[in-house]
């Protein structure tokens, strides 16, 4: 598989990362070399292998249905770049 300029543009869009043509050129080169590297996995026959998503062998922790109070002003909004009357403020969303 090769990564083209269109691929870089598409995945940059999906990742919400702005690009310019210099960046795109760099990425075409870098990503292709990484993809070539990981394509080594094609040598393996994996038909009968189960995927491993966690090495943890224990059962998932389950929490009780209990409420803990937070302090919005201190804990949640303190670091926000912009807020107004306890709302986060962001540039207009275009539907």
């Amino acid at each position, binding site marked *: 598989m090769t990564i083209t300029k269109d691929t870089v543009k598409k995945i940059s*869009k*999906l990742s*919400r990362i702005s690009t310019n043509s210099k960046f795109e050129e760099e990425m075409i080169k870098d990503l292709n070399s990484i993809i070539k590297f990981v394509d080594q996995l094609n040598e393996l026959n994996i038909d009968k292998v189960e995927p491993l*998503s*966690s090495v*943890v062998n*224990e*059962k*998932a*922790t*389950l*929490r*009780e*249905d*209990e*409420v*803990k*109070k*937070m302090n*919005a002003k201190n*804990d*949640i*909004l303190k670091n926000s770049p912009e807020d*107004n*009357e*306890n*709302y*986060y*403020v*962001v*540039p*207009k*969303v*275009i*539907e």
Partner: protein
Amino acid sequence: MNNKFNYYLKGKKGEYEVVIGLEVHAQILSEAKLFSPSATKFGQEPNSQVSLVDAAMPGMLPVINKFCVEQAIKTGLGLNAKINNFSIFDRKNYFYADLPQGYQISQYKNPIVGEGKVILDMPYGTKEIGIERLHLEQDAGKSLHDQDPNNSFVDLNRSGIALMEIVSKPDLSSPEEVSVYIKKLRSIMRYLNTCDGNMEEGSLRADVNVSVRKKGSKDFGTRCEIKNMNSIKFIQQAIDFEAYRQIELIEDGKAVNQETRLFDNKKQETRSMRSKEDAHDYRYFPDPDLLPLKLDSDFIENIKKKLPELPDQKKQRLINEFKLSSYEAGVIISDKETSAYYENVAKNSDYKLASNWLTVELFAVLNKQNKNISDSPVSSINLAKLINLIKNNTISGKIAKTVFEEMVKTDGDPEKIVIDRGLKQQSDPKELEKIISKILENNGDKVKQYKSGKEKLFGFFVGQAMKETEGKGNPNLINDILKKMLK
């Protein structure tokens, strides 16, 4: 159990059927959120019910709320569905201002609940709607777009609240069936106490998938998904609009695009949501912060044992126990509170009268006052008392209606109303005989006519007797006495 009633839409070139599948998002009733310990109350100060996890602070991790898992299992059992001992939480990746993590934790390939079914009582018989799956996922926050011309405002109170997404098979074939289906789901969840079903507050929302096909065709047309609807009425309108829109496209030889649409209830139309189009690559993968959910059979069995009676079971029981018709029972069980009310009245009075008084008289009042049974002006105890007054001949059915009107106004005790207003039925045969013989004396000519065969005059004598007793005379007794005296 086939659809005996066919809902066809007329185009210029023929008739079409509409194929509908629903993705219902039901908010789980729980104190805390699905993966965090913040509260789930509706209508609180913005961002006041947000934990570090809900705001996706760096390094924060989700931990599953056990009760929410139980709620999903209960609901799955209520949908006659298969509960999966093994399920996986996945991340659905997309960017939006009210999605702090940049992904929604949901279940993709391995949901907690598999296939099930729901039975609808339609006027033309019962219809089975297949359930594809039920999965757990977290809700997003809320963005407000009209506070400010250049900015949107974000409130994360809803972010992370537990949802069950219930996906139906494309088995629904009319707006009416969709309405009954949603009401049935809501009723099941209310019986189970897993979702309050409050559509206005957004506790129940639906994405509606609509496609059309030529009448009798077995193929599926291209579908459109109408997003995030929270009113049954609008859903019905949207389906009709969307179906006709698609028919028109097809008849004009144009293609229906598979897309996401929004319903504008003011304009009564659906329109394409362009913003959704480029975001369709959700890149699902198992959430590495959460281990697979492995459930012991014991865990599921315990929930099963504690399951309350469900609407379908209750309906059967009411039919058996109270000899109600399938229709009557269906009406009474459609809502958990209504059926509880009914059982209270029936057990303390007469089950047949209880059904009549509830579904005819009380429903009319509730409808008029736009009230739920839970805030009925007439309590079940008082309604039972009223019915007992009729049964033991203290009042007639007619007087009962007067008493009922009074009860609606004052939530009064019917026994007291009857005494206070002197409405007690006159059932003393000697008193009545006295009154009736006086009437007969004063109407000698009519007695003569009656005896010579003009039997219609019987009603006149009854009327006179009722008039004399100010409507309180026991009608059965008056009948008997008249018959005896006019012999």
